[in-house]
C-alpha cells in the first residue's frame, strides 16, 4: 500500500511537471510547447518553454520541497504538529526584510532583495532561538511562543511599510507578501539550489534523530541523539530552506504545515520515512498550485499561496475525516 502510494506520488509529480511545461499559455498551444521541448518550433516557443516555464518549474520544485521539508523537520524537532516555518516566524522575518528592501532600496539595487530576505529569515531564526533559551536550554513551548512574537513583529513591519511605501513600489512589495513563482529565472534557480540541497542533506542525515526528537528531548538523548547539536543544525537548515524560498518566491503559506500532515496520513508518522516523501509531495503540490495559478484566469495570475491552500485543504479535510 505504501509502495503503491510512492508510485502514485512520483506519477503525480511527473504529470504536474509535464503539465507545467506543456499546458497552453496565452502565447502558445500545447502542441507548439511539445515541439519546442523537442528542440523544434519557433524561437518564441522555445523561449517560453525553456526560458520561462522550465526555470519556473524548477523554482516551484525547489520552493515546494524546501517549505514542506522545513515544516516536517520543525514538527519533529519541536515535537509539535503545529510547528511550521510560519508559526515560528521564519518566513515572516524573510518577508518583512524583503518588503523593507523593496520599499527602501534604490531601484537599481532591487537585485539585493533575495539576499535581504534570507538575512531576514536568519535574523528571525536567531531571535526565536535567543528568546526561547530557558534555564534548561531552548524549550519547544518557549520557541513556539517566541515564533508567535517574531511573527507579530514581522507583520507589523510589513503592514507599516505597505502603508508608507511610495505607491509605485507597492506592486513589487505586495508581490513579496503574496508569493509568486513568476520571477523565476535560471540564475534564481541556480542561486537557490544550494540553499535547498545542503539543508535537505542535513535534514535527511538527521532523519532518524528527528524521529527520536519527536518523542521529546530526554527520550531522544536517551537513545543516543546529540540533542543540542541536532537542534542547532535542524534550525539552521530550516532557516536556510525558508529564507531561500521566501527570497525567490515570496511568502507561500500552507505548504510547510499541511504537506507533512498529508504525507503522515498516507505514510504514517515515522519521520525518517516521511522526510523524503514530504519533499516530493511539497514539490508536486507547488507545481500543481502554480499551474492552476497561471491557467485558471489566464493570462491573469492568482497568488500561488491561495491556490495551494484551495487545492490542499479539501484533500486534507477528506484525509482527516477518513483516517482512523
Amino acid at each position, binding site marked *: 500500500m505504501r509502495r503503491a502510494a510512492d508510485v502514485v506520488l512520483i506519477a503525480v509529480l511527473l504529470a504536474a511537471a509535464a503539465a507545467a511545461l506543456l499546458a497552453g499559455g496565452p502565447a502558445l498551444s500545447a502542441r507548439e510547447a511539445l515541439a519546442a521541448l523537442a528542440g523544434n518550433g519557433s524561437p518564441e516557443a522555445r523561449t517560453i518553454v525553456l526560458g520561462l516555464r522550465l526555470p519556473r518549474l524548477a523554482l516551484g520544485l525547489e520552493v515546494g520541497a524546501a517549505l514542506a521539508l522545513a515544516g516536517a523537520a520543525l514538527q519533529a524537532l519541536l515535537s509539535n504538529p503545529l510547528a511550521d516555518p510560519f508559526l515560528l516566524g521564519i518566513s515572516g522575518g524573510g518577508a518583512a526584510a524583503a518588503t523593507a528592501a523593496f520599499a527602501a532600496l534604490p531601484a537599481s539595487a532591487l537585485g539585493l532583495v533575495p539576499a535581504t530576505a534570507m538575512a531576514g529569515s536568519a535574523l528571525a531564526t536567531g531571535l526565536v532561538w535567543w528568546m526561547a533559551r530557558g534555564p*534548561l536550554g531552548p524549550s519547544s513551548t518557549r520557541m513556539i511562543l517566541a515564533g508567535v512574537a517574531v511573527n507579530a513583529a514581522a507583520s507589523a513591519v510589513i503592514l507599516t511599510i505597505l502603508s508608507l511605501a511610495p505607491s509605485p513600489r507597492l506592486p513589487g512589495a505586495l508581490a513579496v507578501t503574496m508569493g509568486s513563482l513568476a520571477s523565476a529565472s535560471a540564475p534564481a534557480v541556480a542561486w537557490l539550489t544550494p540553499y535547498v540541497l545542503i539543508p535537505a542533506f542535513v535534514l535527511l542525515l538527521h532523519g532518524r534523530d528527528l524521529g527520536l526528537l519527536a518523542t521529546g528531548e530526554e527520550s531522544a538523548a536517551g537513545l*543516543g541523539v546529540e540533542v543540542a547539536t541536532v537542534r542547532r543544525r535542524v534550525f539552521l537548515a530550516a532557516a536556510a530552506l525558508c529564507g531561500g524560498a521566501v527570497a525567490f518566491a515570496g511568502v507561500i503559506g500552507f505548504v510547510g504545515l499541511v504537506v507533512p500532515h498529508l504525507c503522515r496520513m498516507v505514510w504514517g508518522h515515522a519521520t525518517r520515512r516521511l522526510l523524503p516523501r514530504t519533499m516530493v509531495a511539497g514539490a508536486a503540490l507547488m507545481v500543481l498550485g502554480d499551474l492552476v495559478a497561471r491557467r485558471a484566469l489566464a493570462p491573469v495570475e492568482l497568488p500561488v499561496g491561495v491556490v495551494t491552500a484551495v487545492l490542499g485543504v479539501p484533500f486534507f479535510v477528506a484525509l482527516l475525516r477518513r483516517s482512523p
Partner: protein
Amino acid sequence: MTLLDARGLSGGYGGADIIRGVDLTVTEGRCVAVLGPNGAGKSTLLRLLAGILPASSGVVELCGRPLAGWRRRDIARAIGFVPQTVSFAFPLTVAEVVQQGRAPHLGPWRPPAPRDHAAVAAAIARVGLDGRETTPVERLSGGERQLVLLARALASEPRLLLLDEPATALDVRHQLDLVAILGRLASDGAGVVLVVHDWNLALRIAGRLVVLQEGRVRAAGSPTEVLRPELFRAVFGVDVDLVPRPGGAPFVVARQRSSGGDEFPPTS
C-alpha cells in the same frame, strides 16, 4: 563486573546542583532501586547516570571508562533509558516506537536489517504486546504505553537498564510482569537501576536500595540494612509497620504521618 560506577556525583540544571555527592555502583546481574520523597532528585540522578545531563562534579564510569569520553550513541547502545513519559505528539504505532530502540545500532542511513526486526519483535513479545504492533500508541492505556517504552529500551539490547518510575500506571498483573522481565534481565547479566515510589515493588525487584533525600544518599544497602522505621520517619515523615513475610523482605505499610522527632543518622 562493575557496569556503572558513580563517585561523588553532583549535578543539576542551570548551575544549581540537585544531586550532591552521590556514590552508586551497579554490577552485572544486580538490580538497584532508587527511592526517596518527591523532589529528592531521583529522576535527575537517573539522567546524570545516563549522561543525558552533564555532571558538575564527580565522575560516572560506564564499563570502567568515564562517561564523558563516550559518544552519545555508544552510551545509548550500552544503556537503555526508560523515561517517565515521552511526547506522543504524533500517533506512531507500537512497532514504530519500539523500532526507535534500534536507532543507536543504525547509522543515519542504514535501514533496519532482519536482525533489528528480530530484536524489535522479541522486545514486543517480552512485554506482552505482540499482536498489537500496528496499534497507534495514542490508543493504548497509560500502562501499556509504559510497557511500549520498556520494550523500546529492551530492543536496544542494553547491558544496563535505567528506568524512571516504570510502574506508576501498571496494574497488578503488569507489575508482576515487570518484576519478571527485570528479574530475567538481571539473571541474564544485565544491570538495572530503577526509580520507584512503591517500596513493596522495589523490594520484590531490587537486591539493593538507595534512599535519596535532598540530593544526597540517606541510606544505601540491602533491604535488611535499609528498612528501619526511623528512616521512614526522618525521610518521609511517616510511621510505618514492617510486616514480616516468610522467606523474603517484609511488607512496608504506612500507618500515619509521624508527629516528628527522631533524627536519623545518615549512612556514609
